């Protein structure tokens, strides 16, 4: 081993020693080396002094109001349901079940495309509208991609996802005993909200953020959400339904792996 290489390796060993990461054998070797190399002793002493200074620099006091400011800025949080979509995904990882799903999805796609591709949706009355809803007027051109049935205590109805080119229309036909808060999350980099409307009655509670939409549905109400993204972006929609703070249903619609969408 060359002198410079040896010197470098022992310097590394000095750092490991300072950091408490050297083995007993390495420490013994280092002590042996230091005993025979006075210049290494000087370097070792300087390193030890530097470390000592660094380790004794006083901590800066945390600002007294910091924690309060953080807590005050925290947005309200809703509990995460640990079942439903997560379990579905874990089952999906099992090959046999995954192929079973794929087969079922293929069959469902055939049925859906045959049965409803050219279906005219019932005309809906105009009401208060957020954004642009012209896409909805062309609903006959949309292909139904997926439907979710809701039959949980206190909430019945369905959610239907239809697609056409750049647009995705999600129609929530909900019938809740109490007001239901709906939260839709999606990849905000792939799609954005184009419009939203509710019938009957005006929009009472509606909030749009990048990658999420939330609104309130009361009684028997149809809410229509139009998303627009790149052509055939097909974002996965993560849906959550709350009564008060209680999550009563959760599921997903769409995504590239789903059947029924134009590729």
């Amino acid at each position: 081993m060359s002198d410079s290489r040896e010197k470098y390796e022992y310097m590394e060993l000095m750092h490991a020693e300072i950091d408490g990461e050297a083995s007993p054998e390495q420490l013994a070797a280092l002590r042996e080396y230091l005993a025979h190399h006075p210049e290494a002793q000087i370097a070792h002493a300087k390193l030890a002094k530097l470390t000592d200074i660094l380790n004794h620099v006083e901590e800066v006091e945390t600002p007294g109001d910091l924690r309060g400011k953080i807590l005050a800025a925290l947005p309200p949080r809703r509990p995460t349901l640990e079942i439903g979509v997560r379990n579905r995904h874990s089952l999906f990882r099992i090959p046999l079940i995954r192929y079973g799903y794929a087969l079922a999805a293929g069959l469902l796609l055939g049925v859906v495309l045959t049965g409803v591709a050219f279906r005219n949706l019932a005309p809906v009355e105009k009401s208060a509208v957020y954004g642009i809803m012209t896409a909805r007027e062309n609903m006959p051109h949309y292909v139904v991609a997926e439907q979710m049935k809701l039959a949980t205590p206190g909430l019945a109805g369905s959610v239907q996802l239809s697609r056409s080119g750049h647009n995705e229309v999600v129609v929530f036909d909900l019938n809740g005993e109490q007001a239901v808060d709906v939260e839709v999350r999606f990849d905000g980099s792939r799609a954005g909200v184009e419009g939203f409307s509710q019938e009957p009655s005006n929009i009472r509670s509606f909030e749009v953020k990048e990658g999420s939409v939330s609104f309130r549905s009361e009684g028997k109400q149809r809410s229509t959400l139009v998303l627009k993204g790149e052509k055939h972006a097909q974002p996965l929609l993560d849906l959550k339904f709350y009564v008060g703070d209680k999550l009563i249903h959760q599921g997903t619609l769409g995504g590239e792996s789903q059947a029924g969408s134009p590729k």
Partner: protein
Amino acid sequence: MDLKLVRESRQGSRESFERLIIRYEKAIFNAAYRILHNYEDAKDVTQIVFLKAYENLESFDPKHRFFSWIYRIALNESINLCKSRRRFEAAEHIRIEEQYTPEKILSRVELGVVIQAALMSVAFEYRVVIVLRHFNDCSYEEMSEILEIPEKTVKSRLFTARTLLRDTLCKRGIL
């Protein structure tokens, strides 16, 4: 402990998240301060770190350590701030360096100021390893996880960082 608090926070417990803040606010604030050398910036970064952590708790992978995760957020936020403030740093260094000479260094507080100035004179990647090792007491393994680099690279960066610091302090007559 942390994982339990994270799980409870995910379920909506603000109290549990507050306990996570209590556990790590001082470390995060000090790390940000040592990296940025600005009290208000460190305060902002600490706030952003915890807000981002709270908003993204679902994406936290329990296979990793919570503190590694938030340190990583803190470093990223500090990098962003460093980039936006870079043009002001050089002037700041000179001002601090000129205030102290070996004869004038009397207290630990003043020594801390000189060390901080020396820290600011080394590149960000070297400053970070010094801060994590000496001010946050992280092991090589923990630093490797936080910085997402191999332990070998951690050792080599620490080696270089200390050499640079040593040379700077030698020039000032501190070592």
